[in-house]
C-alpha cells in the first residue's frame, strides 16, 4: 500500500525528466539576470532547458564541493563572481577545458591562458550612496569615506564569504599600502552593517544606510527604476571583479554546457547582459549607457595569485574581525 502510493505519486510528479535536455547552471549572478539569460538561452536553443541554482558565491562553491566529493556533480556550468577560485578549481581537475567558438574574440586578459574559463561579465566594486540624503559636499570620493564618523552606523559592506566580488575588493584593499586590514577595523568600528551586495544597495536605497560598497551595474539598474541611488568611482580606483564561466569536468551534460558557454560569450548573450547594465567582455558589444570606457577608469591592483592562495584565511580573518 505504502510503496504503491509512493510509486503513484512519483508518476504523478513526473520524476526523471530526461536529463540530456537539461543544462544546469550554478551561479551567483543576480536573479533578474539569471531569469533573462534563461529566457534568451532557451529561445536561442529550442529543446534545451536551462536550470539555475542561484545563491551567493560561497554557497554555490560549498554545494559544488559537496557534490564533487560525493561523486555526483549536478552542475554543468559554474559562473560565480570570485575569479580567484577558478585557478583552484582548475588545479583540482574540477574544470573542463573548452575552446569556445568565440574564444578568439575575447581579449586575453578576460580568459584563462589554457582556456579552462572565460570572464563572462565584468563588474566594478564601487561606493553607492543615497541621493536623497547625500548631496554636494557629502558625496564620497574615497574608500576612506566609509570610515568617516559622519556616516557612523549608516555604512554597509558585504563580506568575502557572501560575495565573490567583495572578496576580490577586500583582497585589493588589504594589500593596498594606504588601507590594509586596519581599514576594515575602522569601518567595523564605524558601525558597518553586513549584507549581500544587493542587500547593502537596497538598504542604501531606503536610507537605512547612506553609503555602501556595491556593484556598479546593480546601482544603474535600480537608478533606472526610480530608486534614489547613485555611485561614485573612488579616487584610489574601483575594483574590477570579473565573473568567469567554466564547464565542470564531471557535469552530466557536456554538450549542453558547451552550448551555454558559447551562448554567454556570443554577441547575442553579451548584448543581453549589456541591456541589463552589465559591462560586456567583447569589444564588439557596446557598453551599457552611462558607463565610461573601461580603459580610462582607474582600477585598484588585484594580486590574483595571492587571492587564490589566501582565500580561506581572508574570509576567516574578516569574519573574526567583524564578529
Amino acid at each position: 500500500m505504502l510503496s504503491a502510493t509512493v510509486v503513484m505519486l512519483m508518476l504523478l510528479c513526473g520524476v526523471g525528466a530526461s536529463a540530456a535536455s537539461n543544462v544546469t547552471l550554478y551561479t551567483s549572478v543576480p536573479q533578474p539576470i539569471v531569469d533573462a539569460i534563461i529566457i534568451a538561452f532557451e529561445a536561442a536553443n529550442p529543446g534545451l532547458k536551462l536550470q539555475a541554482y542561484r545563491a551567493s558565491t560561497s554557497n554555490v562553491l560549498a554545494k559544488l564541493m559537496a557534490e564533487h566529493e560525493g561523486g555526483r556533480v549536478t552542475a554543468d556550468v559554474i559562473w560565480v563572481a570570485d575569479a580567484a577560485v577558478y585557478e583552484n578549481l582548475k588545479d583540482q581537475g574540477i574544470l573542463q577545458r573548452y575552446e569556445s567558438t568565440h574564444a578568439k574574440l575575447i581579449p586575453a586578459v578576460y580568459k584563462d591562458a589554457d582556456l579552462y574559463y572565460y570572464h563572462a561579465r565584468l563588474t566594478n566594486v564601487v561606493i553607492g550612496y543615497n541621493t536623497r540624503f547625500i548631496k554636494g559636499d557629502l558625496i564620497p570620493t574615497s574608500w576612506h569615506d566609509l570610515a568617516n564618523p559622519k556616516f557612523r552606523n549608516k555604512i554597509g559592506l558585504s563580506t568575502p564569504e557572501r560575495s565573490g566580488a567583495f572578496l576580490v575588493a577586500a583582497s585589493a584593499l588589504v594589500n593596498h599600502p594606504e588601507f590594509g586590514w586596519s581599514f576594515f577595523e575602522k569601518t567595523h568600528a564605524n558601525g558597518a552593517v553586513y549584507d549581500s551586495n544587493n542587500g547593502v544597495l537596497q538598504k542604501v536605497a531606503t536610507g537605512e544606510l547612506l553609503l555602501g560598497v556595491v556593484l556598479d551595474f546593480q546601482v544603474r539598474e535600480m537608478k533606472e527604476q526610480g530608486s534614489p541611488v547613485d555611485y561614485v568611482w573612488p579616487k584610489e580606483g574601483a575594483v574590477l571583479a570579473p565573473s568567469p564561466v567554466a564547464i565542470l569536468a564531471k557535469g552530466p551534460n557536456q554538450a549542453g554546457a558547451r552550448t551555454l558557454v558559447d551562448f554567454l560569450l556570443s554577441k547575442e548573450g553579451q548584448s543581453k547582459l549589456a541591456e541589463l547594465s552589465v559591462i560586456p567582455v567583447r569589444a564588439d558589444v557596446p557598453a551599457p549607457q552611462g558607463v565610461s570606457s573601461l580603459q580610462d577608469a582607474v582600477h585598484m591592483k588585484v594580486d590574483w595569485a595571492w587571492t587564490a592562495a589566501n582565500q580561506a584565511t581572508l574570509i576567516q580573518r574578516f569574519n573574526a574581525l567583524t564578529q
Partner: protein
Amino acid sequence: MKRRVLQPTSVLICLAGITVAILVVYPLSSLMLKAFMPAGRLSLDSFREIFSARENYVAFYRSMFVSSVATVTSTVLGAFLAWVVCRTDVPGRRFFKTALAVPLLIPPFISAMAWLQLVGPAGYVNSIYMAVRNTWDPLFVIYGPWAIILVMTVSGYPLAYLVVRGGLERMNPEMEEAAQISGASVFKVMRDVTLPMMAPTIGSAALLVFGSKLENFGVPAVMGMPKNYFVMTTKIYKLIHQSFVIPNALSLAAAMSILLTVAASVVLLVTRRYLGRRQYTVISGKNVQPNIVRLGRSRRPVAAFCWLIVITTVVLPLAAIVLTSLTKAYGLPPVPQNWSLRNFRYVLFELSTARRGLRNSLMLAVVSPTVALILGSLIAYGSVKTKSRLGQALDVIANMPYSVPGTVFALGMILAWNKTVFGSLSIYNTFWILGVAYVARYLAYGVRNVGASLEQLDASLEEAARISGASWKWSFRDIVIPLVKPGLVAGWFLVFLPSLRELTISALLWSPGNETLGVAVYNLHEGGNITASSALAVVMVAAVFTANWVVKRLTKGQVGY
C-alpha cells in the same frame, strides 16, 4: 500440526520498520558518525574545535538568551490573553478568541520581514520620523537580539495562548467559584486559585514555546545575520555553507547540531521533572460553563489591550508587507503614485523559481501528510494494539525527527544522501529529499494522532469481528479505520499547514528546480529584492490563510485557527 502463518500485521509492521530505518535512523546515524568519527575513526576533535572558539560559546549563549526571554514574554502574554478570553466579560470575546490565534498562521520569517519594514532602521515608522524631522538619524534602531525577541514574542504568544486556553476550557471552575463565594476579589481568585491550578499547563505551554524558539531559523536569519548576530541554528546553517573555506565544516556543523540537541533535551527533561512533581487534577472532562469574572471599570482598558495586540500582531505586519509589495521600486515612499502591480506580475508570471516553489510546496503539503499518516498509522497500530517490542521501539524512533531541531535533521539528511547509495541511487538534489525529510519530520503527528484514537479503541471490538469470521483485512477496514478516522483527518491537516509554510528544512535541502515557496521568499529577501520578496510573501500568506479557512470548514472547526 500448527502451521505458522505470517500475520499480515507483522508484515506491515516490518515494512514500517524498514521505512523508518531509512527515513529516520539512517540520517540521524549519519549525523552522529560525522560528529564522532570525522575522519573515519572515533575522535572528539570536532567537539574540541567547537569548544576552542569563543564565537561558538557566544552563539550558544545567544540562542539560550533570545529563546528564554521570548518564552517568558510569549507565555505571560499568551496566558493572560487566554484568561481574558475564557474567564472575563471582555467585550468582543468571541472575536478575540479566534483573532488572537491568527499570528500562528503567518510564517515567523515573514513576520520578521514585515517587522523590519515596520520598525527597522528605515522602516515605515522611522521613515515618517526622518521625513518630518528632515534628518537621516532614525528615531530608534531595532536589530539583533531585541528585534528577534520582539518577533519571536509576536509569533510565539499564540501557541501559549492556545495551550492555556485549552486548559482553562477544561478546568473545573468549582474551586474558583468557592473562592469567589467566600469573598475573594477577582485579583485574589486569579492569583491564589486559577494561576496555581493552571501552573502545570502554563509550564508545558512555556516548554512548547521554548522548543520552537530554540530551533527557529527564519527569525534569526532575517533579523540577526545582517548584523553578524548568530545563534546556533544560523551558525549551523552558515557552517554548512562554508565547506569550501573550512574543509571540516560539515563535521563541525554535525558536532554543533549534537550540542544544540543536547541543550534542548536537557531543558526539556529538567522542566518536565519539575512540572511532573506538581500535577493537579484539574481537568474534569466535562465542559462546564465557567464563572465569568466581571471586569467592571477595567472592561474598556482590557478590550483596548486585546485590540492593540490584534492590531500590532496581525494588522500592522500584514499591512506593511502588502504596502511594500505594491511599491514600484524599493526606497520610494509608499504613496499611491508609486504603486504598481509589477512585483506581483514578476513573482507570479516571470520568476520561474517562485512558480516552481508554489507548485512544489502545494505538492509537498499533500504528499507529506498522506505518507506520514499512513506510515504513522502502521506504527501506532503496532505500538498500541499489537504491543510488540518492535512496534514500541518504532513509536519512539518515529518521534525523533520532530524532537530534534529542524536544522539538525536537515543536516542529517544532507550527510546521509550526498553520496550515492546502492549504485547510483540518491535523492540528493531532487524533489524527493524534501518529500522524505518532510515525511520523517511530521511522522510524529501521524503516530500521536492515530495512537491516541487507537488507545480508546477496545480490543474486544476487533476480536468480536475476528470471531464472527471477518478476516484481518475486513476487521481493519470496517472496525479500526472508521473509529480512527477523526484522528486521521485531524492529523492530516495538522501536517498539511506546516508543510505549506516550511522553511527551516527546505532552506538546506532545496536544489535547482526544487525550490519551495518558503525558500523562494527567503532567497528573494536574502538577495536583497525586498519588493519582490514581499509580493511573494503576500502570495504565501494568502495561500496559508485560504488553506486554513478550507481546513476549518472541512473539519467543522476541529483543526485550524
